[in-house]
């Protein structure tokens, strides 16, 4: 009996799930209905390995370049000097927005804007945060890097009008991913989660 490659792959995947590690009952969840576990450092390291960035130091530019072919979109990140767009920087500061991201479905292009006047770490985290949203598939890109589907917004969110509050599940996961990205990018081969991927027994 001939089995198509797609069906064979699904059968193998189902068989694989039989032997999957049972969920840790004490693992953190987002608290929302139909909650799923939040992203763990191990899962993020697996994503980095898939991008070819595990156990290496990297900057947001390298992450962006590795992400583009996975999401099948073009990503542009711009750090704009405050003296060129003082009104925009002031408006963002007053609204509490440290970065802007938009995705054009027709052009399959995402743009991230970050003010240059932000302190270095805040600027780095802002850029990583928006890249994290793209990686999670929060902006409706053709594909996503994350294994799990995108988390919903919280009940008090109105992303078109104002920044989401800190308790928004989607923002929480993007924040986590940005932190992991920053830690992994600065530690490189010293990252113990990267080392553990070479010590399986």
């Amino acid at each position: 009996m001939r089995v198509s490659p797609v069906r064979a792959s699904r059968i193998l995947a189902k068989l694989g799930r039989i032997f999957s590690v049972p969920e840790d009952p004490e693992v953190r969840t987002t608290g929302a209905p139909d909650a799923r576990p939040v992203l763990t450092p191990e899962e993020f390291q697996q994503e980095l390995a898939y991008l070819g960035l595990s156990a290496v130091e990297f900057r947001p530019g390298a992450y962006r370049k590795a992400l583009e072919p996975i999401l099948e979109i073009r990503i542009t990140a711009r750090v704009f000097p405050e003296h060129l767009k003082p009104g925009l920087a002031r408006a963002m500061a007053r609204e509490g927005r440290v970065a802007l991201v938009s995705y054009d479905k027709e052009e399959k292009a995402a743009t991230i804007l970050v003010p240059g006047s932000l302190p270095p770490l805040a600027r780095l985290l802002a850029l990583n945060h928006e890249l994290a949203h793209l990686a999670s598939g929060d902006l409706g890109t053709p594909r996503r890097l994350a294994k799990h589907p995108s988390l919903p917004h919280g009940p008090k969110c109105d992303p078109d009008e104002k920044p989401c509050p800190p308790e928004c599940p989607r923002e929480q996961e993007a924040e986590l991913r940005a932190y992991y990205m920053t830690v992994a990018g600065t530690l490189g081969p010293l990252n113990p989660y990267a080392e553990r991927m070479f010590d399986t027994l």
Partner: protein
Amino acid sequence: MSTVGYQQLPFGLSVGLVFLLIAFYVAILSATEKRGTRFGGLMAAAFVLLSLGSLVLSFFPILSWRIEVVVLLVSDAVLILLISWVCLAQAGRLPRRRGQRAQSLEEVARRPRLRTILSAAPVVMFGCWLSYGTLLLIFPAPALDATAQAPPHFLLAAFIAALPEAFFSGLAAWLYLRASGRRTPTRTLRLKNLFYSGGTFSWFAVVLIVFASMNAQVTLPDDAREAVVNGLLVAEEIFTLTSLLSFALGLTLRYVPAVSEAVVGRVYPALLRLQDRLDTLRWQRVSGGTERRLIKASYYASDAAELLGFGEEDLRRCLTTLQIAAIMAGHPDQARQSASDGITPEMARELHRLQARLLREEALASRLRWPTDLAEDQDYAAEETVGPLHDAVEAALTLTSRTEPDQVDERFVDSLWYGLAVAAAPDAGVIPAGRPDGEPTNLAGRRARRAYHDAKESARQMAVG
């Protein structure tokens, strides 16, 4: 894996082997008790079981082919269990001890289909084991006596047994070989994976040897068969011993991560969260244009810094101190000031503590730096490190706690940047204006105050002019 080799050994050697392996079992357990999985104990137990089996066989010869088939199935099940364990560990499917979550090999994470294939190893191999086991139980053959002539269907059973075992053991060996390459972060991990590769390759070799031996039972005439099989048995024993030693060496090699997971998983992200909040608030208050007094005081301080001639890093310390102190002290111009909008002294102390904790980590301290320019084609030409912010947080805590001059940390006493921050503090709204704070008693403080007043006066004259 066949136990024929062991059946041929003299009795004394079998006993010695059993005791050796028991001692080995204890050694492996004690060395691997803190390891991620229980593979060491499993492998040692497997070899003890096989040695005990050969010991029993040397006392009680097997009288029927069906019982030989059962013994073969048991010994093959042990090998399949070991290969499956390794494949599942490589796929990240095995639970780990010490509360760690499983991770796959880096090579497997880069190729998700490999993970699916490795995860299916136990099902495929045990499925084939059931198939050829059923065949041989219905149509028995001399499964343990490798020198005896076997019927043709024995070859089919050999093929069904050998193919999946050879595939998965070979795949596991290749993956461990890749994991011993240049991408591996440390030399110890490279060596471990090289040993594991040697161990799994030995299993691959044993499977091929057993297949060849079973093939010889069916196809070769009596004279040639005995010579070939005896040679194959010796080779099988050598590879079996090699696999045992390779895994023992790999498992007992210990490596200690340069930075602990507790620091990377909890302390570092906690620092990032707090510092990000602080930096964002500083930026919002200054760039948003709402902290007018702070902005003016910062301009005067920058001019004064130029008069005093100190560098960029000290100016950053001074201005950051003012900004943090202003956020902590609150400002009468702010329409809304709540704990969620600001940074409390407790949070600042926690940030300071986390910074100090990370700066004590030798391997990590040099990597706590972030690019001041995110242009992609440039190297890390300019970076901000944690040090200046660490000083600024401590200085801001000192300022806002109204510390008496003779109780200020001596690192700050003779610092021009701290003296300048103290001079600018009333204008920034940190210490209420009009509070009698007196002339500083130290030289640096007096110089800084004079420079600040000169800069302020100069700016006023320019505004009037």
